[in-house]
Structures are given as C-alpha cells and as structure tokens.
C-alpha cells in the first residue's frame, strides 16, 4: 500500500518502509519549489487545512501552514488558548465543530498520547499527528530522515545516536521506529532517569555515557532538554546534565569523518548543545527547518492529491 492510500498520518510505527520512501521521494521536488521565486503550485486549490495545537509550537504549526499555502490550500489555525476549549468543551465536540466548517485535513498537536488516534476514529477529516504526548511526532522523524538521506545519500546501515531525554521524547520514538526500518543502528544515550525501561526492545542500543555512544556515529540527533524535568527531580542540575551530555567541539572527533548533527529545535545553547556546535558547519538545524516544510508539503499532497473514495468516511 502506498502512503497516498491512507486516510491519516498518526505515527511512523505503523508505516511501511515503502510508504516512508514515497514521502521522502515526493519531498525532493517539493524542496525544489521552495527554492523558486514563485513558491506556489495549484495542486491543493480548494482544499482546507486547519491546525489545532493544544500545546504551543510556533515552528511546527507555521511549517504546516506554509506547506499548505505553497500547495494553494486554504490554511487556518485554531488558537486553542482563546477557544471554547477553555470553556470546557470536549475534544470530540471541538473536532465535530471544526469538521462541519469543512476543512479536509486536521493537523493536531495534543499533550495526551493517542489523542489524534481518537480524533481520527471520530471524524471524516484526514488527521495528521503533529505530536501527541510522549508517543510520536511523525513529521519530525520524516524531516530528520530526509535531512540524513540528503546528506548521506542513503539511510541504509547508518549509525545514529539520539542524545537526551529519551523517556519523554516523541521525536526519539518516531526516529527509532523510522530508522530501524531502514536497518540503521540506533543508539540512545541520556541520564538513566530519562531512559525508558527495556528501551532495547525497540531494537536500539542504550548507553549511559556519551563518548562510547558517539564513537563512529554517522548522525547525532540531539534532543531538546525540557528544563521543567529538572524541577520534577528527574536529574540533579542543568550543570550536571550539560557536563555529562552536552555535545561540544571535542566530540566531533569521535564521530565518523562526515558525521552530522541534528537538533529538532528550539535549542538550549549551553545545555544540550554548545554554541560552537550549534553554529558549526556539520549541524543541520536550519536545513532541517527548510526540509520540514518540504516533507509536510509531500505529506499534504499525498494525502489529498489522489482519489481515495474507497476509504472515504
């Protein structure tokens, strides 16, 4: 089954390798459009895309909005903080209200894992998960895989080290699901209090010290540390965290010769990544943001472009 035959994009876990490749291949010509003077094609003219974010995220929301606009869809944003949700409306009622306004695609972020899955079962709109709780963030993983493939030429057989708060990270989980489908050796490293028990069951190698986890890695994916985790008592201090797990210039020599560094942003400089690395030539943070728009264009196009009367409703 091609990805264009799906109603929703809820996670990487249930996507086949062929479907991921279809999205990544489609993102290549989409990226070309971003480089043109006229960044607009008419393919989704007359289609509606609404973003509903129950958690704050300016960059992911903007990325989806621009992706929709570049494909000529009409995009709109429901500001949850000023909406009826604050008056006690249920998620189901909110979604039903949006549905009867007629958008085709609902892009949703929610603090509860599984919320988009619940919504997808209860609406005829196509649902894209833009991050749900600690579960998945599929388009972030897709843009990471696109960025890696663009630089390395392939995903097959690479060693990718994910550094930071693995326990709470939906980016880490989606990346693990995606990269292991391509035969990557995925390593995870972070404080043991921020490492899920039995993480190896997802097919990854876990480390508690940074240096051995970085040895020979082709890609380092540095996660953003949420500072409130420290207040919650999950690690002793930010200083200790940065001493043990911050990526610094001296770590570059441990990587493969052409090793690259990813970060989903926004970065805490001096906490999980040093400024020298953040601004260094091997760090793809800004390119990831551009690739995010291209990948989201590909997802929107594939979900809306073809005939799928057989699964409508």
């Amino acid at each position, binding site marked *: 089954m*091609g990805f*264009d035959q799906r109603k929703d994009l809820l996670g990487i876990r249930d996507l086949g390798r062929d479907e991921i490749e279809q999205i990544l*291949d*489609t993102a*290549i*010509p*989409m990226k*070309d*459009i971003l480089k*043109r*003077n*006229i960044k*607009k*094609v*008419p*393919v989704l003219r007359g289609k509606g895309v609404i973003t509903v974010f129950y958690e704050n995220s300016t960059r992911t929301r903007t990325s989806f909005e621009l992706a929709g606009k570049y*494909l000529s869809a009409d995009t709109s944003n429901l500001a949850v903080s000023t909406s009826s949700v604050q008056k006690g409306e249920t998620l189901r009622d909110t979604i039903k209200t949006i549905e009867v306004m007629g958008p085709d695609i609902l892009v949703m972020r929610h603090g509860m894992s599984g919320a988009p899955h619940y919504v997808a079962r209860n609406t005829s709109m196509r649902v894209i998960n833009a991050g749900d709780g600690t579960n998945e963030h599929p388009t972030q993983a897709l843009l990471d895989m696109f960025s890696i493939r663009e630089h390395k030429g392939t995903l097959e057989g690479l060693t990718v080290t994910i550094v930071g708060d693995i326990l709470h990270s939906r980016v880490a989980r989606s990346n693990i699901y995606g990269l292991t489908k391509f035969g990557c050796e995925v390593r995870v490293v972070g404080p043991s209090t921020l490492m899920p028990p039995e993480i190896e069951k997802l097919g990854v190698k876990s480390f508690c010290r940074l240096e051995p986890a970085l040895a020979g890695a082709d890609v380092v994916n540095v996660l953003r540390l949420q500072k409130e985790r420290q207040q919650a008592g999950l690690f002793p201090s930010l200083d200790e965290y940065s001493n043990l797990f911050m990526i610094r210039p001296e770590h570059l020599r441990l990587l493969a010769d052409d090793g690259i560094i990813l970060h989903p942003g926004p970065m805490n400089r001096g906490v999980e990544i040093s400024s020298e690395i953040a601004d260094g030539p091997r760090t793809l943070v800004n390119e990831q943001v551009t690739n995010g728009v291209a990948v989201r264009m590909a997802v929107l*196009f*594939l979900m809306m*472009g*073809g*005939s799928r009367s057989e699964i409508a409703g």
Partner: protein
Amino acid sequence: MQLRDKNQIMDSMAMKRALTRIAHEIIEASKGVHGVALVGIRRRGGPLATRLADEIEYIEGQRVPVGILDITLYRDDLTTLANQPMVHRTEVPFDINGKTIVLVDDVIYTGRTVRAGLDALIDLGRPKRIQLAVLIDRGHRELPIKPDFVGKNVPTSLEEVVSVSVTEIDGDDKVVIQELIPEN
C-alpha cells in the same frame, strides 16, 4: 479496460524525419536559434526535446538549452485519477526570462496537459514567447490550444489511444494506435 494494437502509424525512421522537419521549422520561425530553449513535458516530451536539440545542433551548429517540466502538481484531474502519479523534479537549469520557449510533448489530445505545462512554465519566469511542438496531434481538444509545430496529424476516435514509444524509456521508437476493448 484493455488495449489492443490496431495500427502502427510511425516507425523509427518516420519519427526521425518528423523531428528533423520540426527542428527546421523551429529554426525558421525564430530566424535562427538565438534565445530559443526547449522544454519537454515529462515523461516522453523530455527525450523528444533532447532529440530536437540534437537535430537543431546538427543543422545550425549551435546547442540550445533543454529542460524537463514535471506537471503533476499542475494537473486539474488529480482527484479523479485512480492512482496518484509520482511527482518528479522539474529540471530547467537555465533562466527562461525573455527566451523563446518551445514546449515539447509526444501527443496533444484534450489540451489539458499543455495548459498545465503553460502554468508550470510561467511559474518559473516570464518567457518572451512560448511555442508548442508535438509529435502527434490526435484532435479532440477541450481547450483553445493549438500546436505551432506538429509531426503528424492523426484523426482518431475517442475509443482509441495513441501510444508513443521512445527508445530512451520504452526500448524502441514507434507510434501505435490502440483501441479500448470493453471487458465482458
């Protein structure tokens, strides 16, 4: 629906002769090839544009730029297609502003592909002039579009399909009329 070959209307030599003639006509229409560039509509327009450039180079001793246009994102029928076509890259590695662009395709039928091609091209810049070259004009236009250069006019019925093969993609050069056989 299945397709059955009915009649071969062009072989390799006939295709070459048609392209040679079109090349001469392009040169004549522009009084040379200054400012002329060829853009083929993916897929079979691409190799045909390259062959026209070869012919023009043979005649004029000058190579004109060649690009390939992918029009998938400009089609007006995506939601009615059973299978979604793959989007490929548009590769027009030169500035089209102020140039005479000859859009090249294998067959013109309803004119909708060419309309999409015009939209796609205009999003890349502002050519001085756009002309259209096709190997086969089979009629049945649904839009007011008329090619400037035609290899062969082929009257067809709506139950027929014109199938162009090119060596670069299909392994051989030929143009065949096929007919639709309704399934029992």
